[in-house]
């Protein structure tokens, strides 16, 4: 039963890639150049989180930096140039996200919202999304004052006050981007230091000190508003224990990343304690023929440059796997 694809009209591909961020698009450049039939399924934005990042300054080869949107578009164009097929889900009522993977030996069966697809090999490169902090008001005011994408929603805060939560690269980078619109930004950092890179911290101090006030050791405990509008953020100073309040028109939250692996529940693909996918040195998961690359891989450094490297590495091992697949199944 399992090895007979003729029992279904599902299309068969050499490799199906789940996600179309930097890792998958890089892998697709390599596989398509080897004439490996490659389809990518993307439920969100082609380019992933890189596409919604205002500016990328640390990707090699762009001495002046590049906008996230432009970078994503170039990567897509390059992958498509060699024949990568990106499915955005044109079927009615459907997003083309892959919902489950079944290992049937010769083929992996993927259930997508467009229908079933068979693949000799699979690359999971679903990346991650920004985490929620889980405080009162966060859900209630989502898209009405609480946001996770500065490049999408920042323009609504022209001449307004904002709070940005987080102390990593994304929080600092996006806070600096938001100064284009906001009159003032309170940056709430939970610990006594920032995780953001030194160069971003320097830029913050040198160019944005007039508009961004950094509050270290400050928790974000509640987002308060009325009539559908955010009015203030309530937190606490961890050093003194005092309650602190920040009047604001909106809150942008960048407190880390959550892996997109929920769809793997019930499969044999092994995850680590935070939900990232475990991989061998060849980036193969615990299921033969299913590979992983990019931010969703356990041990990933969550950088665009390392995601593209992962993609290239995975593609080379996928090619090797497909060679073995051909020998085993005689194709």
């Amino acid at each position: 039963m399992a090895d007979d694809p003729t029992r279904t009209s599902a299309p068969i591909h050499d490799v199906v890639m789940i996600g179309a961020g930097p890792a998958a698009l890089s892998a697709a450049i390599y596989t398509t150049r080897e004439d490996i039939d490659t389809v990518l399924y993307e439920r969100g934005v082609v380019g992933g989180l890189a596409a919604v990042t205002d500016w990328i300054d640390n990707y090699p080869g762009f001495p002046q930096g590049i906008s996230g949107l432009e970078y994503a578009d170039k990567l897509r164009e390059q992958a498509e140039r060699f024949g990568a097929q990106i499915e955005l889900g044109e079927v009615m009522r459907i997003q083309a996200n892959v919902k489950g993977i079944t290992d049937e030996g010769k083929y992996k069966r993927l259930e997508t919202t467009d229908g079933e697809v068979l693949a000799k090999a699979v690359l999971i490169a679903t990346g991650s999304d920004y985490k929620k902090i889980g405080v009162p008001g966060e859900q209630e005011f989502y898209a009405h004052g609480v946001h996770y994408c500065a490049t999408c929603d920042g323009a609504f805060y022209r001449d307004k006050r904002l709070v940005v939560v987080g102390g990593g690269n994304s929080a600092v980078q996006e806070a600096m981007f938001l100064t284009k619109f906001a009159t003032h930004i309170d940056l709430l950092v939970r610990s006594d230091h920032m995780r953001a890179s030194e160069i971003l911290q320097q830029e913050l101090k040198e160019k944005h000190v007039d508009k961004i006030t950094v509050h270290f050791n400050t928790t974000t405990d509640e987002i308060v508003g009325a009539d559908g509008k955010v009015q203030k953020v309530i937190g606490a100073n961890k050093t003194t224990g005092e309650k602190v309040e920040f009047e604001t028109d909106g809150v942008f939250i960048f407190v880390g990343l959550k892996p997109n692996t929920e769809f793997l529940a019930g499969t044999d693909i092994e995850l680590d304690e935070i939900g990232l996918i475990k991989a061998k040195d060849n980036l193969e998961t615990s299921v033969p023929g299913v590979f992983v690359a990019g931010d969703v891989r356990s041990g990933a450094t969550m950088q665009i440059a390392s995601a593209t490297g992962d993609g290239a590495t995975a593609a080379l091992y996928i090619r090797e796997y497909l060679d073995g697949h051909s020998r085993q199944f005689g194709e």
Partner: protein
Amino acid sequence: MVKSITIFTTNTCAYCAMVKKWLDKKGLGYEVVNLDEKPERQAEALALSGALTVPVTVVTKHDDSKEVVVGFNLAKLAPAVA
């Protein structure tokens, strides 16, 4: 049947680019209202969508009824333009 499509966007919004690409692929024309260039129309986008976000895609049907889709949401966008 679709009479017209209007997308409220900003210069930096990746999801807006996805909506435009998807409509291009479907061969559907649309008007773009760039809120970076026309901030005075933000209130209009907010009134239509009820949310402080873009993209907001407004699909006007031949009977002048409107469907509003917030974000790059193909589950809603595909039936809206069908």
